[in-house]
């Protein structure tokens, strides 16, 4: 059976060119960059330096502004908590959008415990943050503003350039979580006045285990990991050399090819969107045009999300409900499966949130695969609805001319 991967927002397959770039640093050049007195260490150090330039180039940054981390979660934590720590005692206020990822939201918990005030900005039905709301929220004692570039679950792209200018005016450090967008749509820190940008290797065809935080020259961030003097003092610990080399290779490929990918994914996304429009009681989520290419998200009434995804998987189509975290079977309670904070933030009624699906396409997907999904989904929805007591009631209401 054909296997169709439509869950690129949770992770992406490794580009084979990235694997080839990484391989020598697994097999041949295994040195520790801190042990650079000898050939092995020196090769590792040079590889990390080169990688820093390549990742910097993806967003128009300087090499010295790139701090490698273990992933987006660590980068987001470092941005939020590291900046708050450096902001000084007087500044104890943080502003974030209501649709930030858990790795931003939950990093606020220790801040709240320490007495910080947090302003959570609402978003509109399409998931957009209103720049004017940002302007009103920023205060003299605001230590940090965090607004993501694009949302994983609903695909909406935020007006970060405009928001950045507002933050710059107010003198507030501005963090942009670009986990879902980097390597897919352009983000240039020479144009977007962001002070901190989170990048995630495994979201643009690089491997898991490596991320980065852009820290603009002059921005103060306290380290969160203590030990040796790696990463210019921002992050201790022996560098994940093969991971860093691979992330850089992925960044270099994305820098060159993301325009083509976006064209291709834009076409597939439109085809998928148009095809899905035919399913009754299906509602798209996120902004209709300001969205990630190849990202199509929606919820359907009278069919539960997990069942839909399970059925799709049996038919060879792998998708998810948007944020991998919010479909976490390993969560402490069932809450995880039901309540998506993002869908709540855009006003989806909570009794139907559970029928949400995100199809996130990647550069390797084809029209044929979109057709497979368009063929499978309506039947699956139909079948689950036929089993659902709520759909039965709905049909009765309708036939009674409701």
């Amino acid at each position: 059976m054909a296997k169709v991967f439509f869950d690129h927002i949770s992770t992406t397959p490794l580009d084979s060119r990235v694997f080839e770039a990484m391989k020598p640093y697994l097999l041949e050049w295994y040195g520790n960059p801190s042990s650079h007195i000898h050939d092995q260490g020196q090769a590792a150090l040079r590889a990390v330096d080169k990688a820093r330039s390549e990742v910097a180039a993806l967003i128009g940054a300087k090499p010295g502004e790139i701090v490698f981390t273990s992933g987006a979660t660590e980068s987001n934590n470092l941005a939020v908590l590291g900046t708050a720590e450096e902001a000084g005692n007087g500044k104890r206020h943080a502003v974030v959008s209501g649709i930030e990822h858990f790795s931003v939201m939950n990093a606020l918990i220790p801040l709240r415990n320490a007495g910080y005030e947090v302003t959570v900005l609402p978003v509109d039905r399409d998931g957009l943050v209103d720049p004017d709301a940002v302007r009103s929220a920023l205060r003299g004692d605001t230590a940090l503003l965090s607004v993501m570039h694009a949302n994983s679950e609903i695909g909406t792209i935020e007006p970060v350039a405009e928001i950045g200018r507002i933050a710059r005016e107010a003198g507030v450090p501005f963090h942009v979580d670009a986990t879902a967008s980097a390597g897919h749509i352009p983000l240039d820190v020479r144009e977007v006045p962001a002070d901190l940008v989170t990048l995630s290797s495994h979201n643009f065809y690089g491997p898991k285990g490596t991320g980065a935080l852009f820290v603009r020259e002059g921005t103060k961030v306290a380290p969160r990991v203590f030990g040796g003097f790696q990463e210019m003092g921002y992050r201790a610990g022996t560098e994940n050399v093969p991971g860093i080399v691979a992330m850089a290779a992925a960044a270099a490929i994305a820098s060159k090819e993301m325009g083509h990918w976006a064209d291709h994914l834009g076409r597939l996304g439109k085809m998928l969107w148009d095809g899905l429009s035919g399913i009754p009681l299906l509602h798209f989520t996120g902004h209709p045009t300001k969205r990630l290419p190849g990202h199509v998200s929606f919820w359907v009434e009278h069919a539960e999300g997990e069942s839909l995804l399970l059925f799709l998987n049996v038919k060879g189509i792998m998708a998810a409900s948007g944020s991998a975290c919010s479909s976490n079977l390993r969560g402490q309670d069932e809450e995880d499966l039901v309540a998506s904070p993002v869908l709540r933030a855009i006003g989806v009624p909570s009794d139907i949130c559970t029928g949400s699906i995100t199809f996130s396409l990647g550069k390797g997907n084809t029209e044929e695969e979109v057709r497979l999904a368009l063929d499978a989904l309506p039947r699956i929805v139909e079948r689950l609805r036929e089993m659902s007591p709520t759909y039965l009631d709905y049909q009765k209401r309708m036939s009674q001319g409701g």
Partner: protein
Amino acid sequence: MTAGPYSAKVMEHFMNPRNVGEIDGADGVGEVGNPACGDMMRLYLRIEEGRVKDAKFRTFGCGAAIASSSMLTEMIKGKTVEEARAVTNLQVAEALDGLPAVKIHCSVMAEQAVKSALDDYAKKHPG
């Protein structure tokens, strides 16, 4: 080894659920759960001579909810009212070769649905 988070048995019942539907003029109908909580089950029973003659269900919910519903109807058909009432969620889960920990509540829903339907039957057929 199955591909998904569930046992082969769960998947088999999920893909081919037994006894989906309604029973016109059922002797007992039970409804538990709530779509806002992610699942809801409606169970229809035909009771004859103190035995579950037929059982049908409609469920809105996850794979475990649908499989539990299907398995439950299979398990109670032919049982006496008392035996049906005694079916526990753990028996349902076991019959499905186990459920993930966070999905145990789905089998609880099935257990509650029988009780609810039998309560309805008792109300309609006092004495």
